[in-house]
């Protein structure tokens, strides 16, 4: 560490930084409107490409001068496609528009960009405080978040390295190159950073072990396998700000003494693969990766590896096997990856979010990070919240916020005046918690103690119409299919669990089933080789514990209390409410199960009915005559007139 070197690094980065600022300023001060469009996979899925095209067309047609700035994702899934229009001449602050379809885009281009009318009825909120329009920061979905990992997501163009650098990017790498590797590892430890890939292992400790490990040719791997259904934060980060992850990887490699790194991304994430690959090329061009980074003696080559998509390949040892070209199955640990990882070399493997937390920690200091979150879980947690909530999406919050705040304040609670029933946390192997747990703080240890886990950060909120037996069956169906088949408990045990749960949802439960579920679950948990099997029974264990009466109803009364399991429910029409002569339900029934009674009301042929529920939707609300019951034999007998010939 000699000062001459520091100067060289400062100089090399200074040039790049100056260029980035110059470009940023030119963009910012250009006296034209800027249209920021969210173009991550989520935005594109909701039609952002068409939105962009519509803007382009109208701008060209009308000869309007405005810049389109493609950005990543802000995490507000309920609002996609999201567009922010910054039109300084209009006198309005930058405005957040939600659900901007192509039609809306054309309208905004004409009326706002051209004529300066922001169309108040379509405004979601202003991006900064002002006197004209309420700011989005007044909404809890915005102001209760704390963004560290996703701070720049949705604001910068992931395809433009200068955008990231102008926002402070790669300054942490510069700082790292000017420090001792030990200092960096110490900073990660002092920050209290724990791995975001599920287990919550101390990142500083992991790096320290890897640094000390004997052997050359160490590897750093970024785990972006993200196989959990419903979890998409890693994809979003890679698509919205890949450079922050790359910067974190470079710092890690420098700290542990690695010169090769790999980003392991699912092949099902083509946009993420494309954007990370592009970002790596750009960083190489700027001398931020490659040999002699920023004039120092540190070399790093980063490759992208596209994973086969098997869920279990996210498990670190299976991931190595898969890169090595073998069947992706986990192996026993120890030896741990820090000693023998990829190709038996010392390897640090960290999750996307873990690595993306590193640059902010170095920039703002370990103490700053440590003060966010809780004593044993510092920093922020990112959840993808789906299911029965008003504002689903990606949320980054300080650790320690309660489930209640998260679900009811930040995500707007349960829609349609339904009651909260359960929340499943931690991906397919997470636990289902009932309302007694709403005051649980979200942090690694509290969630584990409650029987759930941080896991990947997947969170499914369920309302009163959800059957917990079916939920357990649904998750087991996933994990059972994803078992690699290597070890006895997981391979055969989860199959039995799934078969029993399936029987229960069909009303074929037997005495002794619940005990068997309990015993098997515990044995699979204790006996399995890897994390998949060790956690797969969690949904069964927790739902059995907190919703046992529902299981019992399925077995003893053949009744599904939530009226969800098809085999245990039936539809009929309340003849006191059914309107004579109305045909709404009959015309919509896909299997012609609706018949007309002698006094021109309706009945359901239970033999034919497939329980699709279409008739519920079709029946006009003023009659509201369709009833769903469980068990099915509660249906009153309504005689079907014999077919006239």
């Amino acid at each position, binding site marked *: 560490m000699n000062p001459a070197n520091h100067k060289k690094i400062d100089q090399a980065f200074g040039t790049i930084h100056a260029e980035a600022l110059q470009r940023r300023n030119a963009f910012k001060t250009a006296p034209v409107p800027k249209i920021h469009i969210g173009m991550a996979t989520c935005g594109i899925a909701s039609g952002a490409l068409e939105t962009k095209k519509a803007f382009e067309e109208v701008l060209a047609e009308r000869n309007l001068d405005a810049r389109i700035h493609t950005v990543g994702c802000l995490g507000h899934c309920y609002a996609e496609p999201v567009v922010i229009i910054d039109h300084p001449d209009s006198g309005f602050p930058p405005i957040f528009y939600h659900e901007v379809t192509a039609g809306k885009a054309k309208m905004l281009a004409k009326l706002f960009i051209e004529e300066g009318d922001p169309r108040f009825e379509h405004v979601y909120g202003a991006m900064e405080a002002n006197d004209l329009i309420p700011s989005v920061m007044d909404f809890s979905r915005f102001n209760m978040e704390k963004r560290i990992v996703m701070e720049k997501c949705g604001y910068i163009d992931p395809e433009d390295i200068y955008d990231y650098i102008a926002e402070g990017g790669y300054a942490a790498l510069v700082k790292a190159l000017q420090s001792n590797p030990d200092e960096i590892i110490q900073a990660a430890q002092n920050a209290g950073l724990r791995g975001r890939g599920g287990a919550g292992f101390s990142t500083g400790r992991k790096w320290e072990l890897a640094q000390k490990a004997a052997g050359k040719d160490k590897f750093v791997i970024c785990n972006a396998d993200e196989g959990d259904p419903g979890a998409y934060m890693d994809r979003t980060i890679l698509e919205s700000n890949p450079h922050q992850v790359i910067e974190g990887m470079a710092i890690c490699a420098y700290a542990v003494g690695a010169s090769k790194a790999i980003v392991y991304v699912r092949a099902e994430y083509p946009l993420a693969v494309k954007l990370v690959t592009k970002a790596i090329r750009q960083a190489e061009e700027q001398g931020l990766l490659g040999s002699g980074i920023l004039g120092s003696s540190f070399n790093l080559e980063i490759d992208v590896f596209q994973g086969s998509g098997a869920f279990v390949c996210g498990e670190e040892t299976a991931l190595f096997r898969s890169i090595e070209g073998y069947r992706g199955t986990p192996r026993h640990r120890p030896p741990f990856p820090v000693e023998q990882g990829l190709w038996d070399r010392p390897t640090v493997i960290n999750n996307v979010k873990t690595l993306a937390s590193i640059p902010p920690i170095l920039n703002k200091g370990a103490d700053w990070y440590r003060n966010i979150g809780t004593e044993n879980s510092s920093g922020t947690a990112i959840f993808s919240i789906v299911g029965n909530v008003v504002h689903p999406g990606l949320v980054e919050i300080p650790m320690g916020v309660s489930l209640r705040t998260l679900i009811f304040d930040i995500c707007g609670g349960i829609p349609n005046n339904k009651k909260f029933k359960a929340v499943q946390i931690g991906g397919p192997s997470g636990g289902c918690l009932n309302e007694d747990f709403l005051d649980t703080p979200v942090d690694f240890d509290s969630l584990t103690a409650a029987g759930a886990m941080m896991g990947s950060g997947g969170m499914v909120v369920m309302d009163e119409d959800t059957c917990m037996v079916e939920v357990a069956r649904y998750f087991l169906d996933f994990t059972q299919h994803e078992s690699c088949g290597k070890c*006895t408990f997981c391979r055969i045990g989860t199959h039995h669990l799934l078969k029993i749960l399936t029987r229960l949802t069909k009303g074929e439960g037997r005495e*002794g089933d619940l005990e068997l579920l309990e015993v098997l679950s515990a044995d699979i948990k204790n*006996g399995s080789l890897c994390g998949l099997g060790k956690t797969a029974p969690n949904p069964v264990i927790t739902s059995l514990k907190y919703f046992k009466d529902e299981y019992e109803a399925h077995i003893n009364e053949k009744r599904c209390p939530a009226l969800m399991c098809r085999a245990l429910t039936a539809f009929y029409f309340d003849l006191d409410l059914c309107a004579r002569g109305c045909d709404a339900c009959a015309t919509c029934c896909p299997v012609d199960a609706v018949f007309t009674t002698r006094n021109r009301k309706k009945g359901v042929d239970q033999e034919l009915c497939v329980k699709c529920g279409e008739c519920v939707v079709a029946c006009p609300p003023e009659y509201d005559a369709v009833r769903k019951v469980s068990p099915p034999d509660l249906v009153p007998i309504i005689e079907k007139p014999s077919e006239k010939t």
Partner: protein
Amino acid sequence: MPKILVDDREIEAEEGSTLLQACLNNDIYIPNLCYVEGMQYPSSSCRMCFVEIKGQDKPVAACVVTVRENMVVKTETETVRRLQRSALRLLLSVHRVDCKNCQANKKCELQRIAKFLKIGLKPKKLEQYLKEPEIVQEHPCLDYYPNRCVLCGKCLYVCRKQHGQSVLTFAKRGFETIISFYGQDDESKFECEGCTVCVDICPVGALIMRDL
């Protein structure tokens, strides 16, 4: 030579040996299906060889533990037995138990373990799930019985050890996993000469030399 205490008996183990090997060498039987002496990376997949080690809160598989001086081990605790019985019952729930007509009869490891753990070969509580077909005859001279195979992987291991590569391989995934053979048309693979190391190591009667 580290001394360890197993079920209150002091034994001497070879430096660097696995706990399972050390016990077996000293006539302390621990049920096991997937371990072969000298393996560098035991697959630890059958989940049969559980023991409890003082200082560790959960049972561990003895095949992946290296002996340490003064290790205190229990092989017969209730927790250990529960896991072993459970693993065996699971294996038997996908097993066609027809010992009378099986070549492995009387030298079968499943029979031995069942006897040792004092449970019957026909599990009562678990349903049976068997695979089709009963016999796979893809290999030129080996018959494979999916409903006898415990997927221990020992056949692959010894084949690779003997020949540098293996004609046998795991195929499919999860519950469907079976042992399969690289086709003879696969140029990169050597041709099986019927050395029978796989047949000999199979702990059950899942690989049989076909009478040609």
